């Protein structure tokens, strides 16, 4: 039991520490693909260190909400890091929340971020909050539908059980999962402010969504917001890997399988990050009014995944 708790803690700490590195790796890959040298993979850590050493500036009208939001959002993402099976399935905290609650945890962080952006009362903050919620309310049902296909396959909504079933059953091709994977990728891009929906590198006011929300933050608050965003990206990446490429996740808590999981994780993440960068380089930003269309596609793909699963495998 103690070993399980230690692994649970170790997994969460690993994810929290690894998150800026993953974001840095994606940015570095993007830079290479654009024939730039790039700032190096460790750049997010440097930015975080710089921000933590600065004095925070707050707007005059900022309420308690504005100051509390970075901690709440960061806390949500750390909680997600505890729940998502990154290294091993069946860890002590994983029964605490199933996939539906996990979507709720992400929503909680987002709602507070939108509220804080509106709290200041600047035009950009309000605009960013509205856009964020527009994207979010379309992405959330799609994400839920994505989860239902693997949940039907494994007869459980607990992420740990789903991963366990998918990783250790005899090899079966699930066509429904392929649809769900594409839909999940689209949701990942939208939810993490990646390219077709939002440009993570932009500072052009009229096009930005995520940047507009954190415009008024500085120093440690901004650092926490950035770190939470990195964590969210990594959480989505590990979630996708756990659902659609679960090979190598440890089932039992013993030495060899854990080492295998530890060896598999960086490889899978490196490939996923490079693929994400490639995808972002190849696509152009959509107009904001096209975003509903993009997310409707994701939702429909997820529904289709569910339908094909019911037709092809449910009856049999």
């Amino acid at each position: 039991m103690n070993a399980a708790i230690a692994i649970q803690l170790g997994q969460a700490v690993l994810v929290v520490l690894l998150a800026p590195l993953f974001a840095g790796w994606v940015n570095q890959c993007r830079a290479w693909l654009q024939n730039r040298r790039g700032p190096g993979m460790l750049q997010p850590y440097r930015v975080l260190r710089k921000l933590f050493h600065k004095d925070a500036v707050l707007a005059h009208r900022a309420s308690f909400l504005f100051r509390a939001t970075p901690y709440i959002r960061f806390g949500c993402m750390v909680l997600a890091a505890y729940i998502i099976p990154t290294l091993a399935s069946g860890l002590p905290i994983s029964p605490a929340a199933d996939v539906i609650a996990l979507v709720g945890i992400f929503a909680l962080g987002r709602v507070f971020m939108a509220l804080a952006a509106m709290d200041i009362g600047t035009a950009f903050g309000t605009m960013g909050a509205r856009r964020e919620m527009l994207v979010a309310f379309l992405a959330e049902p799609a994400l839920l539908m994505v989860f239902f296909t693997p949940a039907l396959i494994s007869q459980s909504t607990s992420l740990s059980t789903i991963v366990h079933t998918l990783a250790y059953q005899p090899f079966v091709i699930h066509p429904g999962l392929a649809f769900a994977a594409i839909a999940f990728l689209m949701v990942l891009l939208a939810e993490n402010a990646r390219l077709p929906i939002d440009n993570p590198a932009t500072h052009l006011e009229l096009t930005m969504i995520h940047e507009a929300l954190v415009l008024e933050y500085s120093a440690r608050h901004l650092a926490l917001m950035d770190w939470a965003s990195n964590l969210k990206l990594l959480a989505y990446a590990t979630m996708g890997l756990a659902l659609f490429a679960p090979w190598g996740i440890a089932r039992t808590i013993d030495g060899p399988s854990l080492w295998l999981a530890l060896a598999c994780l960086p490889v899978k993440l490196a490939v996923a990050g490079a693929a994400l960068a490639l995808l972002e380089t190849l696509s152009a930003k959509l107009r904001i009014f096209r975003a509903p269309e993009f997310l409707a596609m994701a939702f429909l793909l997820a529904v289709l995944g569910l339908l094909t699963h019911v037709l092809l495998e449910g009856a049999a």
Partner: protein
Amino acid sequence: MSASLATQLVNLFASLLLLIAFAMLAQRRVLSLIHLFAWQGAVLALNTALVAFVTHQHHLYYSALLTLILKVILLPWILHRLIDKLNVRWDVETLVNIPTTMLIGVGLVIIGFNVAMPISHLSETVTRGTLGIALASVLLSFMMLITRRKAVPQVIGFLAMENGLFFAATSATYGMPLVVELGVALDVLVGTFIFGIFTFHLREAFDSLDIEHIEKLKER
């Protein structure tokens, strides 16, 4: 190859077909539509070859080969030439309200699945589960025919519908007799030629490829 693995692979190809049918429904660019059509043909040919291999139906090898030549190489090539000559290679069609179209599409898929369910229960073939998908992709191509206003995408919609029918035949009864398939293939080829000529005349008469102009031809 074990029967269950074969069934799974057939199911996978069927899902790919459905995915491509949806992608075609939402695709705005003419060029990408042709590429998608070629991909659909390729998946169809692979699927047919797989079914032939599993069930030892040798005539299906011929129809797979026929599909490969006709739908992956010849028809896309003709379509490429057509859009080059019509100078619509980079055309982007203004589709109204893709999300609504897609929602109706999902409705059609559910209808297709429901209609096919009792039929596939009666069937004993490895491919019985995929009949619903075949029906759904026929309906989706039909929908594409209805929603498109330009001539070339309509032609592609028609050809995609034929793909769906072919897939339905393969999944329900292991394909039609070879004579029938040859006849259909020839029909499709000739049909594409006629459509090509038709689009040229359409453009000459109205200086546009919009099908709506034909309604002006009514006698008053």
